[in-house]
């Protein structure tokens, strides 16, 4: 099943209203075959099963080289898998590990280009851009070329591109590498807010101390996923961890025009057409 990222899907039902699970993977297997003789193939995933529900923050952990990014790319529909099934309900936002942006475009031009790809109009692009550069605090770099951004700001832009079309599920591959502390906290505020609004979020993380921010954690070990429920008393702290302002700004973005619902059960009307 191919992933839907937003463009040209007018008229389709909104996944947030229809399905509890926004991404389901069952029995997924992936082997990297060598095209050269005398080089062995690598079995990365074997019978990997995972589920991301709407309004759920899922952590994917594992040692280096365990196949987390491969799994994420398969979930995002970027990479083919050899066996098993992957189902997605609703639109996908994928934040890859490497930026995959155009070096010589500015931040504003990048928003415009990817916004067009998502099928957004000028106003929708401007609204999403203003919200994200504000929440992630890189507004002053809007006119700067991507190749002249710091690593952290490039990461913010990469994350923003995956978020700007208001997807139903966010698949984030180590999204906060290079973030300063305030932005790191703002990121988790944003994640909490999106979670409240029914967005399913899957995050690849290496940081053990973040475990209590997730509802569910999947440990990837030798190609197998091991699910761990985070206890009720350990669930995500819904209080803002930065200054609280980023949550307000996110709420203002979704509530602009008074058309968006705020209870997490209904889909906002803005952003990309569904």
């Amino acid at each position: 099943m191919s992933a839907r990222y937003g463009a040209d899907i007018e008229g389709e039902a909104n996944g947030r209203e229809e399905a509890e699970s926004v991404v389901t993977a069952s029995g997924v297997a992936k082997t990297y075959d060598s095209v050269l003789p005398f080089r062995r193939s690598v079995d990365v995933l074997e019978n990997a099963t995972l589920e991301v529900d709407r309004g759920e923050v899922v952590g994917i952990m594992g040692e280096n080289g365990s196949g987390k990014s491969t799994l994420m790319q398969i979930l995002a529909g970027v990479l083919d898998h050899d066996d098993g099934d992957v189902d997605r309900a609703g639109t996908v936002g994928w934040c890859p590990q490497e930026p995959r942006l155009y070096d010589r475009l500015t931040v504003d031009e990048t928003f415009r280009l990817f916004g067009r790809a998502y099928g957004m109009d000028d106003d929708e692009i401007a609204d999403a851009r203003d919200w994200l550069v504000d929440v992630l605090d890189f507004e002053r770099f809007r006119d700067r070329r991507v190749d002249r951004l710091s690593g952290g700001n490039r990461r913010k832009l990469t994350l923003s591109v995956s978020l700007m079309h208001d997807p139903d599920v966010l698949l984030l591959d180590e999204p906060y590498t290079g973030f300063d502390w305030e932005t790191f906290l703002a990121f988790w505020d944003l994640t909490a807010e999106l979670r409240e609004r029914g967005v399913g979020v899957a995050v690849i993380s290496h940081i053990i101390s973040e475990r209590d921010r997730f509802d569910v954690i999947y440990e990837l070990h030798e190609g197998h996923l091991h699910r761990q429920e985070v206890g009720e008393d350990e669930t995500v702290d819904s209080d803002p961890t930065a200054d609280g302002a980023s949550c307000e700004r996110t709420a203002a973005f979704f509530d602009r025009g008074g058309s968006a619902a705020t209870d997490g059960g209904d889909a906002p009307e803005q952003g990309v057409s569904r």
Partner: protein
Amino acid sequence: MNASRRITTGVRASTVSFFREPLNVALLLALPALSVQIYGVSLAQFPDVGLFDAAGSLETTGRITGAVFATGALAGVLGLFQMISARNADHRLSLCGFRPVELVGSRFVTVLAVSLVISAVSTGTLVALLSTGVGAPLAALAGLTLAGLIYGLLGLVVGTALPRELEGSLVLVMLADMDNVFASGLFDIDESITQFAPLSHPHEIVRQAVVDGTLATGHVLPALAHVFAFALLGVGVYATTIANGGDA
């Protein structure tokens, strides 16, 4: 509506990306002038004793050959660099909603735009440096644009299949050099061979435009056929690359 907006935005983005790089602009302005001058001066050093099979003077033939080489090689290398720098981002953009055909379309229009600029610079250089003048400047511009377009598309193909700057550039420059030798008409090579040299038809269009002041209509269609063939090849290789996540 969305498709045309996406293509327009894509073309603008890749054209801006190209002209925003100072090295690209410097090469664009300097390389045609250098090439036209060096080829012209070099060939003019040879005594005209029938060693070469040139229709015009050796200096004129040299300058024409230099212009065609500079346009082809420069467009090719820039097509290559464009593809190498953009392949991963193109893949992400295609996931976000850009159809591969729209992306390919954007790349082709960009190659055309850049080829036109390179050809205009090369034509201007020819007009400025040729003592005999250029008989039909617009026809010369058309011939050089076809040379740029053919090699710009070839650059996209090489950049997709061989995404390495050094190796890809070497392949393109060597191809353009050999092709240009066949196309120049300086050596009496069998036409059954030279007709397959991609630059042979654009070269003849430019030569007739400069020397005779006419448009070599018999060479326009074959040159366009080369453009079409490389465009088809480019679409196939590019679509495969995008489908494979930016990896050939």
